[in-house]
């Protein structure tokens, strides 16, 4: 979806924050003039220091469209330039500039009827959660399955909301380092077996959205093509440790 005309920088005021995990926080912004967005899109955030120095980062939108309210979930990048500021120093009432929504490829639209497979690694869940939330907001019934890989239980985002679940949404957790007691799956990286057991078979032609760190996305996408999923039905979004 090409943005209508020029994308303008909008002033965003922090109006709330929520702790999501040890290393992630959701920031709630009030953005007058926000045009709305699609699940999976992102925004550019611009910070300007008093001496005029300015830098930008991209963050996935976490929320479903809700008037001029926009939620981003920021994962701390150790020694980052921007994420520690956003998480620790930005207080309600403070301002940043925000531009978007951006991106028309890694998106899910409520009118899509096909099965959907979401494969998230770590904070790669954020744009996929926006898809889950948009589906919920429109009472969607498209069959969704979410495979969510994290190192250990404390790394999970949006725990209460995912535990509550939604009709037709199946969620499987994959732990790579440490699992909760009695978790049925041994710890380990995402495997073809996981995708067979908790995903959709390729002959259903699901739309697959994969988001996470580069190594995770590379592995997940090649496992999916190996299982017969068509490359053109696998959409990926990657982030490296340089998210700032």
């Amino acid at each position: 979806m090409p943005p209508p005309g020029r994308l303008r920088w909008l002033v965003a005021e922090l109006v709330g924050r929520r702790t999501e995990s040890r290393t992630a926080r959701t920031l709630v912004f009030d953005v007058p003039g926000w045009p709305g967005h699609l699940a999976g899109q992102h925004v550019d955030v611009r910070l300007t220091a008093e001496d005029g120095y300015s830098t930008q980062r991209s963050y996935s939108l976490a929320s479903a469209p809700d008037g001029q309210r926009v939620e981003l979930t920021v994962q701390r990048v150790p020694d980052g330039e921007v994420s520690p500021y956003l998480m620790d120093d930005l207080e309600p009432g403070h301002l940043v500039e925000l531009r978007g929504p951006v991106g028309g490829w890694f998106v899910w639209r409520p009118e899509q009827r096909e099965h959907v497979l979401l494969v998230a690694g770590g904070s790669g869940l954020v744009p996929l959660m926006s898809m889950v939330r948009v589906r919920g907001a429109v009472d969607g019934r498209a069959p969704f399955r979410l495979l969510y890989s994290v190192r250990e239980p404390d790394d999970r985002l949006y725990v209460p909301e995912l535990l509550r679940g939604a009709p037709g949404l199946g969620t499987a957790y994959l732990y790579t380092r440490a699992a909760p007691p009695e978790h049925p799956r041994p710890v380990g990286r995402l495997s073809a077996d996981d995708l067979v057991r908790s995903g959709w078979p390729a002959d259903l032609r699901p739309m697959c959205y994969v988001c996470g760190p580069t190594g995770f996305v590379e592995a997940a996408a090649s496992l999916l093509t190996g299982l017969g999923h068509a490359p053109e039905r696998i959409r990926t979004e990657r982030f490296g440790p340089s998210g700032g």
Partner: protein
Amino acid sequence: MAIISRGFHGRRPAPGRDLPPGQYEVHDFPVLSAGPTPRVTHEDWKFTLRTETGTEHTWDWARLMEMPGESPTVDLHCVTKWSKFGTRWEGVSLDLLMEGVETAAEFALVHSYGGYTTDLPLEDLLDGKAWIAHRYDGEELAPEHGGPARLLVPHLYLWKSAKWVRGIDLLLDDEPGFWEGLGYHSYGDPWREQRYQGD
């Protein structure tokens, strides 16, 4: 007038590093692409220049390797905000590939294995500004960075440097590529911060 974010100090680029507006420096090499990484072998790889009249000029891997190579060291600027300084490549200049190609075209539409496309003015591929790159930092180019060969056009945002390149159509009229059709800028000059349509 910029909005000041209270308490934000930021990190200035190291002296001698000239960052385009809005960019920040990275030291790793992030990977971005819209779908799974295509796996293309040297045996299967082919590169085809097709003119506006339909004339095709095709190179296979062996023929590309026989051509005189260049070793550009260039800065990369990705529209997702990261910049990487001093990257070392080996490849064949588009000037060499275009020798003997008769065309009146002003635009190029670049095609990749995997279906990706991107468009740019033909003059931005000429005069030492672009390469078919097949080695990075002394090694064969890794598949996730576009191996076996990618286009390298370092003066534009990196999405113009199509990975897994398989051909270029020379066109009289501009035709938007993948990201250009999804709201990104048709030219993409990092120094003028041409990220999205209308910038």
